């Protein structure tokens, strides 16, 4: 099984590029997963168009990239029969992206979205950079942009892509062909930004003392939870559940797996 992670800012053309990749890989058994924060229809659209297995994962209050890293092992476990898993990230943060060393990391980069030097690991850690919307500007600027991309990420393969015409789809599919199968351990290419404070556990009052208290309480609860994100408590993730408990919206025994003191 191979894993492809596609990251990029909203509107960069991730979904269109993925469609052009899927249409070049008709022989493979593919599972497509879309991570998003609030909602998405991409999973049903892709299912209707290509008749492959798809699912969506909504992260809600949790950082979608942390959430993706937590969910990936489950996805792999459930789709052992597939040749290829394509994961489309929510694409919110330039600072981070859950790229995996053992898979292929694709950054879909909108040429109109600013200087490549402003991007963090989303661009700098990608194995392949698919530059989109290049047809909207002159060739000279396209070349300059490309040179700037290879300055911040000298090891990446840079491909001009267009989700509407299918340009670049063949080249990306070829690169997926060259990607190795995943082994047992998956490693993040880049550690994710930390987010461990009272605000993570739902504190809204801007005050160091108050947020520290909330953090202590949240941490205590966190060690008692299974961190499965199973959803049986009615919340999308254990983190959302912790927030709800601390806000007194729900009792902690609503979690069927909670460890008693």
């Amino acid at each position, binding site marked *: 099984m191979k894993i492809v992670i596609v990251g990029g800012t909203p509107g960069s053309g991730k979904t269109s590029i993925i469609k052009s990749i899927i249409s070049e890989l008709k022989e493979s058994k593919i599972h497509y997963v879309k991570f998003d924060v609030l909602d998405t229809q991409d999973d049903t659209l892709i299912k209707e168009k290509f008749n492959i297995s798809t699912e969506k994962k909504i992260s809600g209050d949790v950082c979608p990239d942390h959430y993706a890293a937590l969910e990936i092992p489950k996805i792999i476990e459930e789709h052992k029969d597939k040749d290829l898993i394509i994961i489309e990230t929510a694409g919110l943060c330039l600072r981070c992206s859950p790229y995996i060393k053992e898979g292929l990391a694709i950054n879909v980069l909108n040429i*109109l979205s600013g200087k490549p030097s402003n991007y963090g690991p989303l661009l700098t850690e990608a194995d392949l950079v698919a530059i989109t919307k290049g*047809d*909207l*500007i*002159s*060739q*000279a*600027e*396209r*070349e*300059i942009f*490309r*040179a700037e991309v290879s300055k911040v990420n000298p090891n990446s*393969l*840079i*491909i001009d892509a267009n989700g509407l*015409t299918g*340009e670049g789809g*063949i*080249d990306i599919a070829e690169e997926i062909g060259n990607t190795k199968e995943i082994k047992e351990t998956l490693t993040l290419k880049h550690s994710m930004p930390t987010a461990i404070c009272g605000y993570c556990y739902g504190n809204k009052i801007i005050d160091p003392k108050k947020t520290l208290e909330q953090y202590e309480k949240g941490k205590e609860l966190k060690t008692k939870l299974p961190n499965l994100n199973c959803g049986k408590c009615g919340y999308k993730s254990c983190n959302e559940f912790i927030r709800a408990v601390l806000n007194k919206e729900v009792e902690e025994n609503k979690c069927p797996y909670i460890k008693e003191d």
Partner: protein
Amino acid sequence: MKIKEITIQAGNNKNKEKEGYSEITILKGQKIGIVGPTGSGKSQLLYDIEKLAYGETKTKRKILINKERPDKNLKIDATKKIIGFLTQHMNFMTDINVYNFLKKHIKTRNENYTEAEIKKLIKEVIDDANTITGEKIKEDTNLLILSGGQSRALMIADLAYISESPIILIDEIENAGIRIEQALNLLLKEGKIIFLVTHDPILALGTDKRFVMKNGGIEKVIYTSKEEKEIEKDLSWINNHFLDIRENIRNGNQIKELKIKCKPIGDKK
């Protein structure tokens, strides 16, 4: 890389039928038109050429350079790219003046140029761009305020001098505000091969031959006749006269004469 010729080997049209030729070779210095209605396969043909397709695209066409299959590096690396593309969209997005923009592009292409060489090259580009457009481009003009005609002229001169791509694809470029004949001559002076998707009569009749597209394939090839070449000359003269009048209006002059007298033949439309 020296390019003497490019060869297109026939693929299939949308009905999976073989195209109406087996192979076509185009020599250095030639201009080829590509004509046909929307959806007839013009853009796909440009795409096949740009990608140096070798049977992997949906048309299964093969493109040969100097009778051989081109190296894969030529496809991927922009600075080695032998194909230049002039698209309909000539927008800029970088907030920078013309001089610094061209300098940046020259450095992207070749890091070894000295400051003096860069300065000389930029002067050539701007001077030649100014023979194509009526409104003069200056070194310190901001890229974002260039008019449509100025942008097109600048990019054509850039293609001729800086990009140095020996093969140029032009997709429905508008001729508004530029002297199109001068523009093409500038590109051909450098011994390039030009493919033009166009229905502009001056451009289409100014080519050596034109591919007629139908149903995704090249249906036939028309060689530009002597009569067509004469018509092209007259139309081009009229277009340039138009531009002169436009410049006069821009410069605040009154228009005194139209150097052409014509009367429609046949019924009025």
